[in-house]
């Protein structure tokens, strides 16, 4: 359980995080999205007690992070996989964490195995690791204390396709066991697949939050036809919203309605499906562009039921 309440962080005149509130609940994966510089990492750094908030609060399991007696046993944090001493071996990095938390030495091998680092790899210096290997080592460190809460900043960064699949299964399993997962990511399709809840921020402010299914309820349909202009006209004529997308159109009509309208207009549909992925991507671009244009003011913000 993570609770962020009216969190604000200023760097001089810049409000990197501006009155952000949300909750990441047990048993659920919460995706934390936003463009570059939106304030995701800053929020997570404050949550992990590595930076102080200008105002507001961030708590883990009802406590300030700094008040947890042995935080590694409650919450696993991976903020930057590159932030490891390059001169230590991967294994030594884990041994230090294991000793700090007072865990049995066997945990080191268990978690190396869990993240798929071989014994030989674990004896190499972290300096010589690839980005994906560092990411795996970082995840091993975060999971070492068998925590109930996970906070990961762009964990899929640098992972190979098998690694991304593995990560998705891992996080899913973690949440299904009652754990809380908060992860930031730029891989929207990935987030859409795994996140139960989404918190989206732009320029430090929350622009949308709620269960993924609610947020994407208005997910559009993608329709492709040989004559895309006529297709657009037919859909628009029936009062539907139409956005061109390459040689296809996106519409808010359901696939059934869209297909019938195309049929009625005598158009051969070459592709017809719900625009998954694109739905989140469009929403992301739309919502975050709005915050960039209107720094102040109250644009209509879709807010789902808070979790």
């Amino acid at each position, binding site marked *: 359980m993570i609770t962020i309440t009216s969190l604000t962080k200023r760097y001089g005149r810049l409000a990197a995080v501006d009155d952000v509130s949300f909750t990441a609940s047990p048993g659920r994966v919460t995706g934390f999205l936003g463009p570059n510089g939106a304030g995701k990492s800053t929020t997570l750094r404050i949550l992990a007690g590595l930076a102080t908030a200008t105002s507001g609060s961030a708590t883990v399991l009802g406590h300030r992070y700094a008040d947890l007696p042995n935080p590694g046993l409650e919450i696993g944090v991976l903020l930057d996989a590159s932030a490891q001493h390059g001169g230590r071996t991967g294994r030594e*990095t884990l041994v230090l964490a294991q000793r700090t938390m007072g865990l049995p030495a066997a945990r080191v091998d268990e978690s190396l195995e869990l993240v798929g680092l071989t014994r030989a790899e674990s004896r190499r210096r972290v300096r010589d690791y690839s980005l994906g290997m560092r990411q795996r080592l970082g995840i091993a460190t975060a999971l070492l204390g068998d925590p109930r809460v996970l906070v990961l900043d762009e964990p899929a960064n640098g992972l190979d396709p098998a690694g991304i699949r593995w990560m998705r299964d891992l996080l899913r399993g973690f949440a299904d066991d*009652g754990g809380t997962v908060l992860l930031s990511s730029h891989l929207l399709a990935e987030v859409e697949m795994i996140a139960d809840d989404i918190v989206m921020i732009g320029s430090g402010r929350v622009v949308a939050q709620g269960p993924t299914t609610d947020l994407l309820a208005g997910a559009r349909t993608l329709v492709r036809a040989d004559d895309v202009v006529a297709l657009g006209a037919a859909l628009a004529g029936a009062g539907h919203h139409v956005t061109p997308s390459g040689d296809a159109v996106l519409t808010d009509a359901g696939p059934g309605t869209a297909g019938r309208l195309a049929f009625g207009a005598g158009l051969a549909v070459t592709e017809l499906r719900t625009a998954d992925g694109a739905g989140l991507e469009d929403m992301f671009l739309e919502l975050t562009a709005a915050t960039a244009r209107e720094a102040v003011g109250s644009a209509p913000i879709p807010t789902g039921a808070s979790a």
Partner: protein
Amino acid sequence: MTTVAATATLRAVVVPRRTAPVPFRRLVGVELRKMFDTRSSFWLLASIGIVALAAVPMVIAFQPTGDITYAMFVNTIGYPWSLMIPMVGLLSVTGEWSQRGGLTTFAFVPRRGRVIGAKAACAAGVVLAAMALCFALSAAGNVAAAAVAGIDPVWDVSAAEHLFLTLFQAIGMAAAFTLAVVLRSSPAALVGYFVFALVVPTLSSMLAGAQEWYGDVAPWVDLTHGQLSLFAGTMTGEQWAQLGTTAVLWLVVPLVLGMRRLLRVEIR
């Protein structure tokens, strides 16, 4: 699942487990290990050892056989060590920032003061261990040299002087540690330490020679002045007062200010 069990599971998930705080002794153990488990620390340790092992035959080779004393060994090992040993403590602090390990260290132990305290305890331990080793190696070298020359070994360092030499090294370590806490950057702190150990004493004595007024105040403002009088082996009451004053000025005050900043600074 019964309601009671369900509630228990939920509680397990939303409130912290009853964990004991990380004990300070464990932190000291971890920090000590961190001082010696990287590649750079391996080379630092290796060169410290090489210097010491080279010093013993050098004294035997370059001194006239009859003149060799215990103090020669102690000084030949102790002086280069006074430049090298403090780097162990210095890098242990700055490495958290320069190598960015602090992101993990301070996530596991958010009370940063305890981490720095553990590092300070290790640094003190390193000085004591190094001096014990220095005296042991010197004694062995002295006995060996005397045996070769067929004379009785000359023991010319008093018990008090042993303490002075240890304090001399401890001040070097404290200065390096303070610079590390204040600057939090390996290159900056290393340069700072070499300026302190090599440039300041020379500049200070030059200035004292050229400007009479500075010659009078130097012992009260120059920490290396007091440090060197320890090395000389005699300490008057006034010299202790001078050493205390400069230590407060250059060690205690910067350390307190540096720590206040360190406890707040954003780890990134």
